[in-house]
């Protein structure tokens, strides 16, 4: 029997829990050459900014053990070009789209949200809180619960009521649960984690930092335990809040791990660079894994690892009942 893979982001139904991580699918058309985007639960865009951005100089990438560092600097065409070309393209193909937004001030996030609120095809808005706050001496929004909450409240207030607002959290904080709680209190309908923690590598040949921007975001399986921990802690504290889990998901088993920790949607990022077909492969592997464990519905696995030790799993109960 096929597993019911449907999941919900707020009240928005996704056909399955696989999405792309922000910044890992460009405008969507690049991946559409490899698979039908309609087959994944949602596509998350790169972070859209108000004005076009050229990003950081090269080299922007350095491979690290089981991961990579990147410093792209939010390169993108700006919201006008996005609304004119990229979003309609996705909308016409019926792709459920999570639009990631980024800004340097609360006003900028608000202005972006206002531009998106009338646009057809916005399935959800993911607020990238990892941008430095220009008004607050360059401190990153996501490092501060109050600053994050201010952005979320402002975006929530202008966004259409039926479009979920997702707060994307950074693991580079003392207490991710308190930031998560501040975002939810400010009106976030869902949380997504984790954004790239900051890392650095030095080219020992050139004896200089490997990246032009010196530091960069670390992604890939190297950060998966960090992601599992964050999802676990936040789900434990806020069990009713939907979580998009991400961080080094390469296989269906990796996705399953995040689901057991409490994620109801799983985003695939760096794996797409290695394998453009990764989303569909991971979805297939996840479904097989769920079926092999006796699950009929994906929803039954979400946060399952939180049950107390000694408690039986759901499907075992099902088996006992069926054997009566």
């Amino acid at each position, binding site marked *: 029997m096929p597993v019911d893979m449907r999941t919900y982001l707020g009240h928005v139904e996704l056909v399955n829990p696989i999405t792309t991580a922000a*910044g*890992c*699918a*460009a405008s969507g058309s*690049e*991946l559409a*050459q*490899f698979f039908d985007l309609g087959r994944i639960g949602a596509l998350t865009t*790169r*972070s859209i*900014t*108000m*004005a*076009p*951005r*050229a*990003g*950081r*100089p*090269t*080299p*922007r*990438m350095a*491979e690290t*053990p*089981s*991961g*990579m560092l*990147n410093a*792209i*600097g*939010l*390169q*993108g*065409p*700006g919201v006008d070009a996005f609304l004119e070309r990229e979003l309609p393209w996705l909308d016409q193909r019926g792709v459920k789209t999570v639009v990631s937004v*980024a*800004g*340097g001030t609360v006003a*900028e996030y608000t202005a972006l949200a206002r531009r998106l609120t009338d646009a057809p095809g916005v399935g959800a808005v993911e607020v*990238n809180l*990892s*941008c*430095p706050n*220009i008004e607050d001496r*360059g401190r990153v929004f996501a490092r501060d619960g109050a600053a994050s909450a201010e952005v979320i409240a402002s975006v929530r207030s202008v966004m259409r009521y039926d479009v979920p607002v997702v707060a994307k959290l950074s693991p580079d904080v003392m207490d991710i649960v308190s930031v998560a709680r501040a975002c939810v209190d400010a009106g976030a309908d869902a949380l997504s984690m984790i954004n790239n923690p900051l890392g650095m590598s030095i080219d020992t040949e050139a004896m200089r930092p490997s990246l*032009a921007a010196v530091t960069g975001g670390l992604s*890939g*399986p190297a950060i998966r335990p960090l992601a599992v921990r964050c999802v676990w802690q936040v789900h434990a504290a806020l069990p009713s809040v939907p979580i998009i889990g991400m961080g080094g998901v390469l296989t269906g088993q990796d996705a399953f791990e995040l689901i057991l920790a409490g994620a109801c949607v799983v985003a695939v990022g*760096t*794996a*797409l*660079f*290695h*394998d*453009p077909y990764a989303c569909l492969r991971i979805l297939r592997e996840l479904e097989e894994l769920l079926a092999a464990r006796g699950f009929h519905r994906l929803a039954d696995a979400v946060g399952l690892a939180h049950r107390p030790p000694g408690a039986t799993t759901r499907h075992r109960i099902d088996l006992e009942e069926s054997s009566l």
Partner: protein
Amino acid sequence: MTGTVLTTRRVDAYHALTVVAPGIAERFRPGHFVGVAVGGARTSMLTRRAFSVHDVKPDYGGTVEFVFTVRGPGTAWLAERRARDTLDLVGPLGRSFPLPRDPVTCVLVGGEYGSATLFPVADALQQRGCRVDFVLGAVSADRVFGALRARRMGETTTLTTEDGSLGMRGRVTDVLPGVIADVRADAVYACGPMPMLGGVTAVAVEFDIPVQVAVEEQMACGVGVCMTCVLPVIGDDGVTRMVRSCVEGPVFRGERVRFDDVGTIPFDALGAPGGGTRNAG
């Protein structure tokens, strides 16, 4: 897709791998490249390595050959592959070299193993009745790739090495003006290190003839999603944009690439820092 290694061989300082990959061979055009996964299924090396295709043959349904040099653990792993090993490849990727409609005279300039890319171009040009002349160069004799094949295919072949161990002492750009003048070249095709491409473009611009260059940039994905392989390129509208060398390239009209600004964000590029979002992200 999975390809099976057919042969591996050393070519001077380089390695050449021939892989049975019909799907790639079938759609290949000169200038295309492949993205190769390294390290095997359980590897800690996540990014693909990009290699331009040197040769495509119809054997076993279609084979592709690419040439590389060992630069790190990924290429070292690749150099250890043997016949019948399998390789995970994506391709063909990128934009191919545009070819002239009429039979004209073309000078093909290659630096180091960048020359590998030029032989399929030479083939295609000759099929259209073009005259092909080669200029190949490197630091030393063992790093000049394809001299023999160039001598067989080209009307003339000029070799340069910086240490003088083969051909003329110096760089390809030292001899290029002479070659262009001698053969009355109508176009230039080039592949090699970035500074060389900048020099070749400057020469071609001097002679007022078109120049097509295939750039070499560090890529993580090769399919246009990772945004790591950007370089400043002037568009049809005169605006400089940071474009991806994997999907908008790797072949560009030479004069469109701002070689002196590679590795920077030129102040006049679209979306360059300085606006209100200066410090975002």
